[in-house]
């Protein structure tokens, strides 16, 4: 991290691609919350996740990129669509998709984005990592997760397990509550 960060101008090829992917991700994310068609919102979410995966690829994090496609595009949104289709599958515009507290939600989202951007910019303004291929393969990632970051990883696993158990308890009707 002692490398001198190159200037922002002129932008290099990867930087331009990364910015374009960011624009796609942001635009499709906006469409997710503004479109009037429920299923189209889920599909715009797919585009957003795809653009994120492309961003990871540009940063040479190929393992994360393909896992992003596999988990988020391939499983999470499919489950969302499954839920939508199982409960209601409207074709065309739905009138009741607007929520009363959309301005509050927009405010919270903007505030969160502002906090994140401030933290990243102030923390990593001068940090510069060269984009060498092979950094994001399975091996370096695995050894950093299971050596350096093993405690947060395990804590997250326990959290997910608790969520899983909670979901099962909520969905099973044959478990009696306390009388």
């Amino acid at each position, binding site marked *: 991290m002692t490398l001198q960060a190159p200037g922002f101008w002129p932008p290099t090829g990867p930087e331009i691609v990364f910015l374009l992917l960011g624009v796609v991700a942001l635009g499709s994310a906006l469409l997710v919350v503004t479109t009037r068609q429920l*299923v189209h919102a889920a599909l715009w979410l*797919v585009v957003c996740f795809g653009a994120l995966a492309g961003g990871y690829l540009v940063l040479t994090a*190929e393992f994360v990129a393909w896992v992003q496609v*596999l988990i988020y595009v*391939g*499983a999470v949104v499919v489950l969302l669509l499954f839920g939508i289709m*199982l409960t209601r*599958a*409207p074709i065309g515009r739905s009138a009741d998709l607007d929520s009363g507290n959309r301005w509050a939600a927009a405010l919270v989202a903007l505030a969160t984005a502002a906090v994140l951007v401030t933290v990243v910019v102030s923390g990593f303004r001068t940090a510069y990592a060269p984009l060498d291929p092979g950094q994001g393969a399975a*091996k370096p990632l695995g050894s950093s997760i299971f050596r350096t970051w093993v405690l947060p990883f395990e804590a997250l696993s326990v959290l997910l397990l608790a969520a899983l158990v909670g979901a099962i308890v909520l969905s099973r009707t044959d478990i009696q509550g306390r009388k």
Partner: protein
Amino acid sequence: MNNPGPTLSDFGHDPLWISIIKAVAIFVFLMLGVLFGVWTERKLISRMQHRYGPNRAGKFGLLQSVADGLKMGLKEDLMPRTVDKVIYFLAPVVIAVPAFLAFSVIPFGPMVWMFGHKTPLQLTDLPVAVLLVLATASIGVYGIVLAGWGSRSPYAILGGLRSSAQVVSYEIAMGLSFVAVFLKAGTLSTSEIVAKQAGGGTWDIFGMHIPTPSWYVFSLIPSFLIYAVTMLGETNRVPFDLPEGEGELVGGFHTEYSSSLKFAMFMLAEYVNVFTVSAMAITLFLGGWRAPWPISLWDGANTGWWPMLWFFAKLALAFAFFVWVRASLPRVRYDQLMAFGWKVLIPLNLGWILLAATLQALRLPESNRNGILAFGAVVVIAGLGIWLRFDTVNQRRREARAAEVEEEFEQLREEPAAGGFPVPPLDLPHYHGVVPSARAPKEEVTSGSN
């Protein structure tokens, strides 16, 4: 004799025109494969059922698929009036494109000379190539789900629903069955996994050196068996072809794509997916392009262009397995399918991964064998204890259930119409002959409501 083949560092040096030649060759191979694969399947299954199969178009009916393709291209392209037009059009594309993409990381052979360049017989390779295949497979599901939803027909939407649930659950089992291969090979790149299957170790017993087979199908047989089941589920083939089950859902997700090239795209994608999962089985478990045992004694077997022949022979055998299964097995019921995926395949897989990882750890030179063995013994005894506990509970439940069923039969004997079987609500509002314009314009049509 043991030519280990290309490694990751051999990729990325091709000039562009060689890459284009390889990509076009793969595309042509897959298209011809589909044309003659359909013919092979129909011919083979006919022979298994004591009939002739297609024998009119061309010699042995070889041109039957060409005739079918021409027919579909010339038929009227129907667009049902109420479909979501963009999605209805997009679905066949979304299902067909990823099917072809996955083949870019399948190794067909070792390094060869191609027009003065030494290049591997594989379009490209990544350090995480196997993940790419899984990811493209998971994108292909969208084609089925969107076709089911966009057609706006109850049969199609039921097919789409079944498919999304089925593919997501079988994909988990499929990914888990790769884990043991990754553990043993130590890499996720397809060319290196093939290279690791080049030479097996020897098994020293009583002073004899018995060479162990090097293909992972022998050392990781549980993974291979689970993969063989999940590849049927992942490609929606018999006995897991519930998304299109013609006996109950007309055509399932492609009911409304009754004619035209869009239907041809679905067929194309199905067969290319079958080839992809077969090629993955060959690459990960069956030694890739390496020659099978008696041929591998010949020194030149794994050099030059010969390996393409072995690869093609293995692919043909794997495809014949799909046909054989289709001719032999009836379709499973939907709840059986889900129970099998979640309650049998995934737990078995997890247990086998634990065992395989333990065996792998025992082989490390610096491992503490006694510690691992003692810990393993504790785990096995605890597992047995838990199993015994639940077995008695399950036994009690089974008996109670049997008594219940007996009681129900008793009742049905008295009044046959009581109870009955649950049927899906097929009388959706837009199937009552209500013309859309006659309805209120903003009315929402939901699935599953009456």
